[in-house]
């Protein structure tokens, strides 16, 4: 990529990178807001774990382009492409967060949970003082996996006009211009690597030594 290309397209790349980041971050927030409480609920009703995690699994198997296509004709959602992108990315992010929340809480030493109950902690106190802190690094691992995956999938969102770095990739493919493809692909890969590293640091900080 020449310096003149970057001079011409630098501002566009930057704004599309910010847009890409925004789409992914919004989806991660929604996914965590749904998957963490559902994961906690599943630990209280384990009979539902298999069907609910199975459903999240099925969502993940839908090809991303098809998912964006399915959502396009829906009322309100279809009005703005960014909404479609966020809903689709949220759906893809559910499984890793849900599965890790469930496994993280279920994996807590039974002796610790036994004492938490026996010493008279209420259900809410057990959740916030014991279960979530001890499962936090697992939950963050799920969030990290989901974030890296969704940064990649978000490039497809440009197909429905949601913006993001995929726009450069699609434009590059259409005009057979590899510079444009790389201008979208390299920042997207960079975002994924940075997100992975930053969340990895948090994950290590939250890991409880036993």
């Amino acid at each position, binding site marked *: 990529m020449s310096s003149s290309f970057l001079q011409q397209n630098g501002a566009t790349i930057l704004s599309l990178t910010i847009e890409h980041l925004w789409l992914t971050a919004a989806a991660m927030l929604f996914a965590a807001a749904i998957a963490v409480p559902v994961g906690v609920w599943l630990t209280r009703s384990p009979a539902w774990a298999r069907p609910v995690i199975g459903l999240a699994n099925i969502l993940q198997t839908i090809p991303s382009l098809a998912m964006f296509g399915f959502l396009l004709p829906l009322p309100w959602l279809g009005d703005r492409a960014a909404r479609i992108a966020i809903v689709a990315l949220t759906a893809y992010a559910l499984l890793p967060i849900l599965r890790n929340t469930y496994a993280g809480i279920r994996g807590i*030493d039974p*002796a*610790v949970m*036994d*004492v*938490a*109950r*026996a*010493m*008279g*902690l*209420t259900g809410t*106190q057990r959740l916030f*003082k*014991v279960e979530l*802190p*001890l499962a936090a690094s697992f939950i963050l691992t799920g969030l990290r996996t989901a974030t890296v995956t969704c940064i990649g999938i978000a490039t497809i969102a440009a197909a429905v006009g949601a913006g993001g770095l995929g726009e450069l990739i699609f434009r590059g493919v259409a005009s057979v211009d590899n510079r444009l493809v790389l201008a979208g692909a390299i920042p997207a890969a960079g975002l994924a690597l940075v997100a992975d590293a930053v969340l990895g640091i948090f994950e290590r900080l939250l890991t*409880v*030594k*036993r």
Partner: protein
Amino acid sequence: MSTAIEFRNLFFATRQGRLLLDGISLALEAGTTTAILGRSGSGKTTLLRTVNRMVEATGGDVLVSGKSVRDTDLIALRRGIGYVIQESGLFPHFTVERNVGLVLEAEGHSRAERVQRSHALLETVGLDPTTFSSRYPHQLSGGQRQRVGVARALAAEPKVLLMDEPFGALDPLTRAEMQEMMRDLMARMQKTVVLVTHDLDEALYLADRIVLLSSGKVIADLAPEAFMQSTMPEVQAYLHAFRRGVGNAAHGRSA
């Protein structure tokens, strides 16, 4: 002396219909230590756990200070009863100080109050608060963890202390130190203690009374001296098995 804990014709059966407690009736006097002995599966731990309703009896009743545990608010009941288990069950993400003060934290006591209480309790169990308060459980030895577990169980000043094989996982020397500490604590604090153990020596050293369970029934309920002199076949069988176990261990060491 008043009755602190009373088991009234207590039954517990699993969902599969296995009877673990079969009509147990016992009255434990306040300020005394009762050791519950018996082979694995005899119902010792189940009996202990009916007191703080970690196990809900399927028949009969348990009374703590004269009140049925069923009629007591579950959270209040549990906060009023100390609980110590073999693995200590310390919260690995909390410091020693926070582990000890957690019940007080749950009850909304101020931080200053919690710190003061946990430091006093650490001293009581023989740990220097300035050294140990800020440590995490993984930074402690097995014996130190159990000491913190005992301190935590005493935090809410319970009248009743339930101990489920508290020193079973410790090496013999540390176990002896812990038993000594417990005997001293019991003499000073006058708690009603229910101690589940496999260790007859521990029961003899710590308890005022020994209850032997078999298949969910009380087989013997005797003072330690009477237990050792009992001619009851079940007690004799237990003593014989215990002595043989100790003898085998000694033989193994000298071999």
